[in-house]
């Protein structure tokens, strides 16, 4: 082969490599252009041409029972309403779900619509990964149908980036036999009553797993603590305020009196295990009562968290449904999101323990008739959401660092909370 031919061959190969390199950046560029386009589509809210069949990819992390209900009951309902739009429901591994979504942002392989954890919604929105659903014309009317707490978890910079899909919170799990030993019939009405009875027992009666936000917020709020102002803009003056210091001090006192144990601090038995024989009470989500009849036969019941100084408290959990900015069918995806929050679907999923997010279903007979769901729906009235922030992970870390400092290293409560509040201020700003 002559020199010229070799040169031509090399130039051709270099061009091919150049093209490949250019292609490798294409998803990011596509994503970059996708957001404004998606937003414009959202603003216009024009129904998509329905003549052509569409397939929407829906990611979720439902368990076996919920997935069965989705496939056998919910999706056939959707097919009847929208035969031209096929839903490809993809069940993802819950433990690595967040990482899957982050990776999909980078590769441009995000789903059209997904069920996501409420705490991640603001973070995904801040990355430009989600469509602002509040830009749709009918959203203003739609938003009034949802419970305030779950809806607020979709808020980021004055726009809503998702619809609440299902909700939950923590309520009290009671071992009635041990409560009886303490002289309390059934569930205690107040924490004061419970503490007075448990102080004399000499062994831990109340358990929490760790020092993270989901674990300790209910206790912190119950004993009078506050994280930030109402608008989630400032932690100084709240997290390190007198009420918060007193709340942490109450927990420390209960710990010292062997009433309250933190598994990760004391090496004590996990609550799910210990509630059968050692603990009188712990706070947990509705999933603990997989089979309520079985739990009841073991003498374990659900109750609202006993009040302290006249008020109860809990932390809101659950999932939202969000439309991804890289979707080519954002209108259809929004339609599906609305369908998933309709009364019929919410009731269908309730059968598998997914608590509804609609105001109209709070007093529904099915909810009120169930001994577990009715407790959790009642508890939601006093439950608060965690700070809706794109810096949620860092905020969680600040909280858990501070609690470790106090409960493990014996750090000064006021000084630790003041330092944590300053760090949180920077993350809220």
């Amino acid at each position, binding site marked *: 082969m002559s*020199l010229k031919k*070799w*040169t031509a*061959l*090399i130039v051709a*190969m270099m061009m091919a*490599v150049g093209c*490949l*390199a250019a292609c*490798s*950046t294409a*998803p*990011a*560029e596509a*994503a*970059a252009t*996708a*957001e404004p386009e998606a937003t414009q589509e959202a603003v216009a809210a024009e129904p998509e041409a329905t003549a052509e069949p569409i397939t929407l990819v829906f990611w979720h992390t439902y368990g076996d029972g919920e997935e069965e209900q989705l496939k056998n009951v919910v999706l056939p309902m959707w097919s009847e309403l929208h035969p031209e739009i096929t839903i490809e429901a993809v069940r993802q591994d819950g433990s690595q779900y*967040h*990482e899957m979504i*982050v990776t999909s*942002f*980078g590769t441009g392989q995000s789903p059209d619509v997904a069920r996501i954890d409420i705490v991640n919604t603001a*973070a995904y929105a*801040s*990355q*430009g*990964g989600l469509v602002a659903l509040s830009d749709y014309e009918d959203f203003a009317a739609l938003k009034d149908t949802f419970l305030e707490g779950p809806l607020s978890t979709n808020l980021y910079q004055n726009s809503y980036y998702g619809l609440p899909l299902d909700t939950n919170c923590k309520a009290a799990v009671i071992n009635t036999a041990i409560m009886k030993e303490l002289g309390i019939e059934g569930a205690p009405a107040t924490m004061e009553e419970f503490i007075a009875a448990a102080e004399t027992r000499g062994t831990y009666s109340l358990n929490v797993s760790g020092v993270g936000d989901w674990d300790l917020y209910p206790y912190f709020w119950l004993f009078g603590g506050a994280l930030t102002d109402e608008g989630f803009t400032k932690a100084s003056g709240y997290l390190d305020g007198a009420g918060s210091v007193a709340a942490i001090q109450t927990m420390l006192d209960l710990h010292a009196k062997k009433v309250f144990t933190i*598994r*990760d*601090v*004391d*090496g*004590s*038995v*996990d609550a799910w*295990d210990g509630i059968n024989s050692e603990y009188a009470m712990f706070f947990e989500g509705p999933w603990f009562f997989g089979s309520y009849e079985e739990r009841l036969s073991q003498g374990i019941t659900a109750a609202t968290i006993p009040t302290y100084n006249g008020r109860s408290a809990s932390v809101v959990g659950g999932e939202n449904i969000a439309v991804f*900015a*890289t979707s080519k069918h954002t209108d259809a995806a929004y339609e599906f999101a609305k369908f998933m929050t309709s009364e019929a679907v919410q009731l269908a999923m309730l059968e598998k323990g997914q608590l509804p997010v609609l105001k109209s279903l709070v007093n529904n007979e099915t909810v009120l008739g169930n001994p577990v769901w009715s407790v959790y729906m009642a508890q939601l009235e006093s439950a608060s959401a965690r700070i809706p922030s*794109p*810096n949620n*992970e*860092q905020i969680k*870390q600040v909280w*858990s*660092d501070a609690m*470790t*400092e106090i409960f*493990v290293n014996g750090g000064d409560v006021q000084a630790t909370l003041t*330092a944590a509040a300053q*760090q949180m201020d920077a993350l809220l700003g």
Partner: protein
Amino acid sequence: MPQGKSPCGTALSVHHRAKGRRKVKHVQSNAATKRKWKKGARGWLTALPFILPGLILVGLFVLYPMLFTIRISLSNYKIVQGQIDFVGLKNYINILTDASGRFWYAYRNNFLYALVTVPVILFGGMTFAYLINNLKRGRTLFKVGFYLPVITSWVIVSLVFTYMFNNSDRGLINYLLVDKLHILKEYVPWLLREWSGNAAIWLMGSWKNIGWAMLIFLAALQSIPRDLYEAADLDGAGIWGRFRHITIASLKPTAYYVLVNMIIGSFNVFIQVMMLTEGKPNGRTSVLQYLLYDKAFGQFQFGEASAIGLISAVTIVLLTALLNRLLKLDTVEKGGADV
């Protein structure tokens, strides 16, 4: 003096001749350089088709990601839009001056991991290899036994270790120390304490890698010529003399190889931290790779994550260069050949 030629004219003509010679030389040298270049280029062009596939792959999968990582480490990177805003050294400053000190704890833990596990793996591997090599029967059984942890999944091993170091009497260690042997009064949450958490990570790393070192040393032991030992016998060398002057000396190059590999590997520790402690409490058991993962996937701080990755890479390069210099690895081959 020749007629018609003044001394000045003679000097001029000498000057011109010299200039002419220089010009000729210059032209000749230019031609030689051109020929050299042409020859070199022809050589490159002949070799290029053979090395081009490799070059393309290295460019695509090594150089491009590396350069892109450097760029992201100096930028604020928004993953969905692919938006990259240059911020200078801000990411580096952020991680180095973070109030929680997470980076420095992670950096420290990588060095501690190397400091603790490398000697254990090195000497453990060497000892077991020596013992197995001297076995008359059952060599294969022991080789398989020691190598089994190497091929067992990190995740499965992590789950076993999590169970062993679990809280309360549900964990094997607690059960033995508190309930059976009564050495401790209270149960200890091993994986949630700074030093016991780190110790569990070191133990798992050592247990998992010792079999690999054993196999490498065993291969090296089996390659030592028997006539060396026979000659030493004739010279009246004892067991210790033979072990020290023949076995140890022959294993030196292998030991350096294992040492360098293990030290570099110490900066890639990740799975055991993610599975056992997740860096708890407060990042005190974290390592650089786990911190990188947490920054990128947990906090969307891709710039800071890239900066951590680059600091790890620079540390590994520096350590490797330092080890080469300290252990005189370039002369090891010669030393090995002499044995």
